[in-house]
């Protein structure tokens, strides 16, 4: 097992270097000069332009710039945002808790509803439940996030007034030095009603962000279950007279979980990197929106630093998933 884990970690390093290269190159390949974008309609003189080129170091050969970036990264220095003049590292970790909190809740939501939905659909294959659940999943999968979010806001916040429109907590709660995990901050502050407020603010974004993973998990669970339910040992279990709950819940689901875990692992990556629309609509101060704004402003250090950190997190999650496989299915370890 240790050898297996080490071999997975060994693939980490070249991927890491590759990611630094890609993140460095990606933003530079896009047309658009950060200095001109920064100056906007107002423009700037040629002399001033040259000064700024020098100040940002764009006059040096590209490989020197990359080398500086790489050595900086290895020392934990991701550079400074062109726009806010603050260290990328600081900005990322100020915003990341918000994205993480939302992603975790969205994932829990998707798994708690997606797994049972998939199992129920598989067990009732071809019947009403199956069709209804799978059609709903297809709708959920294809729904434009933006539209879905606004619809929920208008109905639940606007018309019914059950949930707040946007933000992370009611503005009357103020925590001078937050950790960024709002639920935790609310609990730690001990203020009356803070936790409830934070939870209420999480409801709609969680549903919106969790909808696509929910649909994917439900469909994946159904197809994996169907495959397993056709196996001989299930027939044997049935013949032995085990209860359907035991057969489906214990014997079938456990074996159907491997592809499902793969999908969950991949979805975590998507969630971390891609909460962009959800964050924009719900004014959720996370890294998705931060990255998009930075791409538009050609804020090189933020884009390359942000991409790198997100990539590293996705790599860590995938590594964890790989290791989990090893536990669930010993055959994989030996390959």
């Amino acid at each position, binding site marked *: 097992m240790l050898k297996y884990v080490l071999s997975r970690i060994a693939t980490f390093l070249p991927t890491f270097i590759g990611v630094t290269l890609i993140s460095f190159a990606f933003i530079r390949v*896009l*047309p*658009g*000069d*950060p200095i*001109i*974008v*920064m*100056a*906007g*309609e*107002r*423009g*700037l*003189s040629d002399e*001033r332009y040259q000064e*700024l080129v020098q*100040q940002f170091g764009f006059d040096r050969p590209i490989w020197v710039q990359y080398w500086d970036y790489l050595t900086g990264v290895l*020392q*934990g*220095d*991701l550079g*400074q945002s062109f*726009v*806010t*003049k*603050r*260290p990328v*590292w*600081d900005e990322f*970790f*100020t*915003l990341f808790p*918000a994205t993480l909190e939302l992603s975790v809740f969205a994932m829990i939501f998707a798994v708690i509803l997606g797994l049972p939905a998939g199992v129920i659909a598989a067990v009732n294959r071809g019947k009403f439940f199956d069709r209804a659940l799978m059609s709903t999943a297809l709708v959920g999968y294809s729904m434009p996030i933006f539209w879905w979010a*606004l619809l929920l*806001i208008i109905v639940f*916040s*606007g018309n019914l007034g059950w949930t*707040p*429109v*946007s*933000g*992370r907590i009611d*503005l*009357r*709660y*103020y*925590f*001078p*030095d937050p950790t960024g995990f709002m639920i935790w901050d609310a609990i730690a*502050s*001990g*203020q009356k009603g803070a936790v409830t407020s934070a939870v209420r603010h999480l409801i709609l974004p969680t549903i919106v962000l969790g909808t696509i993973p929910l649909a994917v998990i439900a469909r994946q669970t159904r197809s994996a279950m169907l495959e397993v339910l056709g196996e001989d040992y299930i027939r044997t279990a049935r013949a032995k007279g085990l209860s359907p709950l035991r057969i489906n819940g214990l014997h079938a689901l456990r074996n159907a979980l491997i592809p499902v875990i793969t999908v969950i692992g991949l979805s975590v990556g998507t969630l971390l990197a891609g909460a962009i629309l959800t964050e924009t*609509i719900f*004014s959720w*101060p*996370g890294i998705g*929106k*931060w990255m998009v704004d930075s791409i538009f402003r*050609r804020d090189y250090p933020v884009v390359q630093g942000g991409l790198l950190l997100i990539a590293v997190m996705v790599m860590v999650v995938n590594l964890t998933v790989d290791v989990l496989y090893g536990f669930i299915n010993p055959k994989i370890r030996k390959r």
Partner: protein
Amino acid sequence: MTVSNNLRESIMRLRTILASGVATLALSFAAQAQTLVYCSEGSPEGFDPALFTAGTTFDASSHTVYNQLVEFKTGTTEVVPGLAESYEVSDDGLTVTFKLRPGVKFHSNDQFTPTRDFNADDVVFSFDRQRLDDHPFHNASSGSWEYFESMSMPTLISSVEKIDDLTVAFNLSRPEAPFLANMAMDFASILSAEYADAMAAAGTPEMLNQAPIGTGPFTFQAYQKDAVIRFLRNDNYWSDPAKVETLVFAITPDASVRYQKLQAGECHIMPYPAPADVQAMKDNPDLNVMEQEGLNVGYLAYNAKVAPFDNRNVRKALNMAIDKQAIIDVVFQGSGQIAKNPIPPTMWSYNNAIEDDPYDPEAAKAALEAEGVTDLNMKIWAMPVQRPYNPNARRMAELMQEDFAQVGVNVEIVSYEWGEYLDRSKAEDRDGAVLLGWTGDNGDPDNFLGVLLGCDGVGSANRAQWCNEEFDGLLTKARQLSDQAERTKLYEQAQVIFKDQAPWATIAHSVVFMPMRKEVEGYVVHPLGGHIFDDVSLAE
């Protein structure tokens, strides 16, 4: 930032959390008193207004935390005394002397308590850090002083001199009338030299930008990135204190969501509504919608250096082919007003006597034929971004394409990434007419006419590449006069020449809408685009 620094910061942060646990409770309940919530459209880049150029940043810094020596009277572009009680311009126009207001207090925060009142040192510091390359704070926040630079201040100001504690003289390299209006701009905000020294000594000069200390009507309390900015009323303010105790910016980038929050009572005021929502807002009995023409202009700039657009009659003919009302209806959805002059109607010296080119395709066609222009193919450049002066350039270009087709001109629409667009459209041999616009900086007509149409701007901000000596002569003359009535005459005349020569088709000025809840009182729409809350209160 290294890892060890991060660790140190985390530990410090943890310590503060523990220390402020009790304070939190008190603060949160105090905040329930008179709190004005403004659903702002975006995050500030920082809190040192001289480092940045975005209006969103100024709302959260120069309009709340800071003052300037002279200021724009809210709701007008009139320059009135601020931190300076009075000023005097020397006869040759080369020295401007400011008498400073005594007894003005700077704010304080956890790291800093001022030991003295505002004085001339603060003024000298605030300008020298932008002006002098060897000033210790010139590069402190990786500073690039873009606004200061783009208003040509480095070449205009030759020195800033402290005469005594309450007198400062600005020596200029040339007489320039718009200088006073420049002094009211955001980059001219006055920072505390004492705070800067304290932060430099503590090794944290970046705090100037992160935890601002000013003299303004609100003190900065906290910023939670991309989420919330909190301000408290400055009870020691030198002028009438703000009406609300707490001012909160709830950052809400999406316009529909801002509207929902306004309806739900989660905020009191919001800027930049989606044009499609404005009518519903006006119909809503809980809301009040204020409106005013924006200090901006959207235009189509021909290239006056390239045939046949070097011919004034051709430009004039094309202007007659554009159905501007259709553009206002379709592109602006009512949130715009037809522009006939290159400056907006809220600006002094606006020449209302000028008549716009009529929309007359037949006459346009005849005029083109008279000039021997047939089967003309041209390009129209459509901006890839939204701006108040042009919410949808692509759609605008398509409408013009149809209009020009009516008079036998075939249009190809082109577009580039925004940075490329700005850069390529400057070229003197550029192929095609460019859609672009401008939002005023300081309410001075020179800021439109000089920047966008002066001969110096050819090959850069003058996208029409149009240089008219008579027009340029009037501007130069006006710049050297300090009497506003005399300047007005010259600018009015310049607008007549502009209209006659038609380097642009002037399209529209946006109309700015400010929706707010009925209980909001005392809000005034500011023509320079900023959002100012000093006089705003909430009815019980």
